[in-house]
């Protein structure tokens, strides 16, 4: 990936003089993710640490998040992350290719939207990273992109940062791939904390893998389906349903955007103790998320229009993105996708059961609950969305 002229990106201006230097975890399409170690500013009197400027007011109805300075962060993340004192800085950097006006408005609005959605998810008890703060820089006070190249257009240089909780674990994409890879030795992976988008080069097994890949070029590597991967898929479905019920549309549900806190590398057949293993999934990267009204159905009056008070279209498109991400990155993973849908519907059924308990048995037990209707309408819409792609042979 690196060429002789390319020095890699420079950290955001807020952290440019930070010691130890922030580590670049990944450079996504839109943002760079930095891992910042703040163990060095352990002292409570570290007042010289620059406070994180909050330029964003979070919408009405939601309390503004508590924002911390770098020194305060050390005490916050101590509680959350086993004394590790690290947090994530998601930097939306300026895109040189974009028109400056477009660039600034997109960067700003996306950072704001992401913070809002994360906070709303947190409130709805959907596992996602905690937001610690937001910082924004313009060209005048920042040095963004200085080291990248000499030809940076100063007008286009602006970036904004989101300070987030660091999630220990690996992406489920990495998890599925490693589980499916017969060459991977379990011992090399157990207990190894993986970065947000766990990189293959960090794995000691990688050089061995590429050699075996060369040898078995004609072999199809299929996605492993066992009780563990199935339970991950099922839990993922319930999680997405929970998020949708809270009115959040993720917008970019891929297997790279879902983290697994406690990956279990042993197979279910090897260890009976693992049969009760519950995956702890965390949704990350709400960069394209939008929020709508939460799903609310009133069981007391069984009017049919209540079932239409949610946006099935957005939810179905969200699921369609997930389905395509699954099938394009994980060959022959149809079983897993099936489990995701089951999990999705089971969550809404669970909501029905809960609401029926609250309202002390309304209506006859044979009818489908109002929340299940929501799930059904989303799944029906998904059918329509699938047929929508251009130039499909079974269409038109």
């Amino acid at each position, binding site marked *: *990936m*690196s*060429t002789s002229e*390319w020095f*890699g*990106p420079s950290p955001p201006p807020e952290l440019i003089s930070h010691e130890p230097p922030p580590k670049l975890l*990944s*450079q*996504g*399409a*839109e943002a760079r993710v930095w891992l910042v170690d703040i163990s060095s500013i352990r002292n409570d009197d570290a007042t010289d640490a620059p406070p994180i400027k909050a330029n964003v007011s979070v919408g009405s109805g939601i309390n503004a998040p508590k924002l911390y300075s770098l020194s305060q962060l050390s005490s916050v993340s101590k509680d959350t992350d086993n004394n590790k004192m690290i947090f994530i800085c998601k930097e939306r950097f300026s*895109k*040189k*290719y*974009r*028109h400056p*006006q*477009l660039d600034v*408005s*997109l960067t700003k609005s996306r950072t704001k939207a992401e913070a809002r959605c994360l906070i709303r998810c947190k409130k709805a008890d959907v596992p996602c990273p905690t937001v610690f703060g937001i910082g924004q820089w313009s060209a005048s006070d920042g040095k963004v992109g200085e080291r*990248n*190249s000499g030809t940076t257009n100063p007008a286009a240089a602006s970036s904004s940062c989101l300070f987030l909780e660091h999630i220990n674990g690996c992406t489920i*994409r*990495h998890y599925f*791939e490693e589980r499916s890879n017969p060459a991977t030795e379990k011992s090399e992976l157990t207990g190894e904390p993986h970065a947000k988008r766990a*990189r*293959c*080069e960090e794995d000691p097994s990688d050089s061995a*893998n*590429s050699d075996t*890949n060369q040898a078995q*070029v*004609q*072999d*199809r*590597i299929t996605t492993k389906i066992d009780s563990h991967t199935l339970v991950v898929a099922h839990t993922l479905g319930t999680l997405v349903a929970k998020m949708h019920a809270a009115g959040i549309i993720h*917008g*970019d*549900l*891929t297997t*790279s955007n879902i983290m697994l806190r406690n990956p279990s590398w042993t197979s279910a057949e090897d260890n009976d103790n693992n049969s009760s293993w519950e995956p702890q999934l965390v949704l990350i990267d709400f960069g*394209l998320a939008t929020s709508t009204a939460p799903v609310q159905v009133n069981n007391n009056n069984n009017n049919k229009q209540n079932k239409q008070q949610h946006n099935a279209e957005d939810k179905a*498109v969200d699921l369609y*993105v997930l389905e395509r991400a699954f099938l*394009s*990155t994980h*060959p022959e993973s149809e079983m897993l996708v099936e489990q995701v849908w089951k999990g999705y519907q089971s969550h809404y059924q669970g909501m029905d059961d809960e609401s029926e308990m609250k309202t002390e048995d309304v209506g006859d037990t044979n009818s489908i609950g109002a929340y299940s209707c929501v799930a059904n309408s989303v799944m029906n819409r998904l059918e329509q969305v699938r047929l*929508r*792609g*251009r*130039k*499909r*042979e079974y*269409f*038109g």
Partner: protein
Amino acid sequence: MRSFFNVIAVALFVSSPKVKFGASRSSPYLIMTSTDPPCPLEPIHNLPLPPPSHFSHLYTPNSSNQTVVLGIEGSANKVGVGVLSYDPSTQTYQTLSNPRKTYVSPVGFGFLPKETSWHHQAHVVGLVRAALSEAYPEDGEPQRNLSAIAFTLGPGMGGPLRSCAIAARTLSLLWNLPLIAVNHCIAHIEMGRVATSSSDPVVLYVSGGNTQVIAYSDGRYRIFGETIDIAVGNCLDRFARVVGLSNDPSPGYNIELEARKHTLENPLKFVELPYVVKGMDVSFSGLLTNIEELTKSTNFVKEGQEKEREEQFTVADLCYSLQETIFAMLVEITERTMAHCGQSSVLVVGGVGCNKRLQDMLALMVQDRGGTLCAMDHRYCIDNGAMIAQAGMFGLQYGSESMCLKGVEGSECTQRFRTDQVEVVWRPKTRRKHIS
């Protein structure tokens, strides 16, 4: 040889009985055609792809041991014929000739299937003749050098596709050559890979009918992102129609020329337009409606008038803003796919792919990721016959069962033919490893 061509000409006109010679002459549409300059005869340094010998039963190399394929393309408003040869001694593919004609519709109109079919029917015979005589100028019977005929099976407009398929079938029967059915999108990708010597790029395919971000994985070209409504070229063409830009040589090129009026000294106004990226997908229809409404607003300054107020905008401003917005969307989904697949090189193909501004934006994005951009000029970016021949050549050399037809059976065109439907037998079946 002349008698052969007369037979095809008759076959074509019999197939569309409504077209008479007199009628076609008087039609204003058939006169309006632009011809590209002849393609220079330069060798393409290709990727090392030695063909396995056990598929040689499918075709016979010519007397000089070369495999030569004639490709016929006509899925949209361009009709092109290319002759491509493979020389096993140097392991290179070479475009021997690649003539093309473009049907240009009048200002304010798009190209309609009927007129476009007439145009293709009128020109395909001449193009085959021109391509063969350019490839083998000394040879009295140049068709003897050919090993196979490749044609576009789809996707595209039905009428134009069928017109060219009839020509291909007729030639196949006349000269007793095997037919190869080629997917138009795959042809674009393969031509780009060979012409730019990029082995495994992320492909941005942008044209009048297609907008896709494609990466190879496990025997197929997988579509990672695409438009959910109209194609990017379609959006540009329709906007050009609304503001009355000429369709000659192409509406997109005239928009590019308008947008190039933007300089550092005299910057054009950037009008905000809807920016619609949904995950890996893009949408242009709402944007098009929005910009069409803008041309009806009081702030729109018509051609020849002067801007009086700050908030006013001209055609050039709109062209510039349209390009900036839609290309930013395209670059963004391309970058997403690169990040997703861990790829660092990008190949841009299709008619919109020769837009300089899009190439510049892609180059800036790729530079930031430490990768390379593979771009081509209009000869290979825009639909052409050589690309059909190139993909057909791969199908022939690697014995693709779906592409190599038995006789004329299975040569019915299809308007819907997904990129990921084709099994890419000429590339190894490896799953992409997530490395960056």
